[in-house]
């Protein structure tokens, strides 16, 4: 060894490394854990540095340049296109599906029907949705067959050559009608009610007795479609190791992988879902739609297969916001204090459960509004109808009940001759109020917000 080279012994210790970590703010070496673990609970209403700042978005530059690649902007060598045939009938038994004419067409490389799906059911809470309807059609937007062809136009033309024989069944469209015992049944022969939630707090009947006035009203909200500007899009491709890759506009890719695993009978480790930049979701892309279909078409053809929903598919065959029918009965005193409230919510649950159970739960908890009500009874039902699926959409049940309880509040204020702002301030939550389900709330600023807003709007003028 060269005598001029000096070997320096580095002085390292865990302490020194941790100090270096501190400087870099990189936890390369973890702190030893001491039990019990103390969780840091931030003080309520603590201002964070982010509030009040104008932030730029890291993807903004590429968007403006038109360089952002959404799923439909991706293309792979040999890629072909898939289209799904929609039932177009609200409720029917499928007697036969004949894809032979479509399969013969030049340029059509594969067809798919429901019977070919290994496990033809999935869903976020109830697995009541088929990938492709094979026995019963539950709503007009149900897919009944699919084709893959070298161009989109050929795929669309091929759909016309698919013959499906239906035996029409009596559909039910109105959720209230669907709740009755003799209504046509959608899934379960006994009942169309597939989820029920009840909240009971205090004693509503006594509350109504004690109250000076009782107000009743029914509110309805409509079905709303998300209309993301980018339609649902997916590309499916298999590799030489038998693994399926899906590029998809799907939002929940882990759950999506579970559903693809279930429906295609594949282990998780053979499924890779790449969720790229999406052109709007709003809750409508929260579950799989055509992923298993494209996966199977890709397997059959040995080619990457792309499927993009048309705008018609978006309206007919993708999830929507639940229409709600909300019956409110409120016992209120002459001074405006709410004493008791009874709410009955009927949620139009569409053809499949999708996210209805979650929506129902949220709606229930929020149906009383941010108001102190000692006696509360909420009963909520999700009901199947033969209409487009209802699922997650920004708010998840909150917008519907908010419309109801706020309109109701205004109506009562008017009748009692009380200022709509005052009646709310009288009843509103304060710090550490409890939600109807007993959750103690912090950072409650309902009254302050109302007052600041009222001042800014010039409410008094």
């Amino acid at each position, binding site marked *: 060894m060269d005598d001029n080279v000096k070997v320096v012994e580095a002085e390292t210790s865990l302490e020194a490394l941790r100090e270096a970590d501190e400087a870099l703010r990189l936890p390369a070496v973890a702190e030893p854990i001491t039990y019990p673990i103390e969780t840091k609970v931030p003080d309520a209403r603590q201002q964070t540095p982010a509030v009040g700042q104008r932030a*730029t978005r890291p993807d903004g530059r590429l968007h*403006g*340049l*038109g360089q952002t690649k959404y799923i439909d902007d991706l293309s792979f060598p040999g890629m072909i296109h898939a289209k799904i045939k929609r039932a177009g009938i609200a409720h029917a038994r499928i007697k036969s599906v004949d894809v032979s004419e479509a399969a013969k067409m030049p340029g059509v490389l594969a067809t798919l029907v429901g019977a070919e799906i290994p496990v033809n059911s999935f869903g976020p809470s109830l697995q009541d949705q088929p990938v492709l309807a094979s026995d019963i059609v539950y709503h007009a937007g149900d897919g009944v067959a699919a084709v893959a062809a070298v161009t989109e136009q050929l795929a669309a033309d091929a759909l016309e050559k698919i013959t499906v024989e239906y035996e029409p069944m009596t559909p039910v469209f109105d959720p209230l009608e669907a709740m009755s015992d003799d209504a046509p049944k959608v899934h379960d022969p006994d009942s169309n009610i597939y989820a029920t939630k009840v909240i009971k707090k205090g004693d509503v009947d006594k509350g109504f007795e004690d109250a000076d006035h009782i107000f009743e009203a029914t509110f309805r909200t409509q079905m709303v479609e998300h209309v993301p500007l980018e339609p649902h899009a997916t590309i499916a491709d298999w590799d030489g190791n038998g693994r399926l890759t899906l590029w998809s506009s799907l939002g929940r890719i882990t759950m999506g992988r579970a559903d693809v695993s279930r429906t295609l009978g594949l282990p998780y480790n053979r499924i890779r879902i790449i969720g790229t930049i999406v052109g*709007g979701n709003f809750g409508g892309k929260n579950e799989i739609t055509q992923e298993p279909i494209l996966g199977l078409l890709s397997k059959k053809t040995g080619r990457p297969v792309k499927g993009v929903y*048309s705008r018609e598919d978006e309206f007919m065959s993708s999830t929507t916001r639940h229409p709600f029918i909300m019956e409110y009965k409120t016992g209120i005193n002459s001074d405006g204090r709410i004493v008791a409230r009874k709410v009955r919510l009927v949620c139009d649950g569409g053809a499949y459960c999708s996210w209805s159970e979650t929506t129902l739960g949220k709606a229930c908890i929020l149906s009383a509004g941010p108001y102190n009500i000692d006696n509360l009874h909420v009963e909520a039902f999700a009901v199947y109808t033969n209409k487009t699926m209802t699922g997650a959409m920004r708010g998840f049940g909150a917008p519907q009940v908010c419309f109801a309880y706020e309109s109701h509040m205004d109506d009562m204020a008017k009748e009692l001759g009380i200022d709509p702002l005052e009646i709310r301030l009288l009843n509103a939550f304060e710090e550490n109020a409890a939600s109807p389900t007993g959750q103690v709330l912090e950072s409650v600023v309902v009254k302050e917000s109302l007052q600041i807003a009222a001042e800014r709007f010039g409410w008094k003028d």
Partner: protein
Amino acid sequence: MDVTMNVNGRELTASVPPETTLLRLLREDWDLTGAKLGCDVGDCGACTVLLDGQAVNACLMLAGQADGRQITTIEGLADLDAFHPLQKTFEDLAALQCGFCGPGIILAAKYLLDTNPNPSTAEIRDGLSGNLCRCTGYTKIIEAVADTAKELAAKQDAA
């Protein structure tokens, strides 16, 4: 049939079936995927391009209709030196969220400012009436167009 167009300053040719829309021609034959397919019937404006300087729905034009014309897509706005002021302002103000409407809205805004350099808010809304955005509520988009108008006017005065 064969078509030739001047696209973003370059002459491009393609051989396509007559029923090909300008939108598909741009996206599939020439890999200009900035113009998007949102509805395919001219309602959403995600497919907006400039045809001889006028903002149009590319999904409502046949390739043959656009033959021999001059097309500007979003890809043609920035050059190697700089972004178009609209692209810069949209970025600075974080005017876009998912971005899908972005190319269409920016081109519609460019057409507006080309024909009306000092638009009122009502005129900006009118100029963007053919472009839908589902994410933003349009507020920052309108602000960005207004700011760009002021910026361009200031540059004009300085020049």
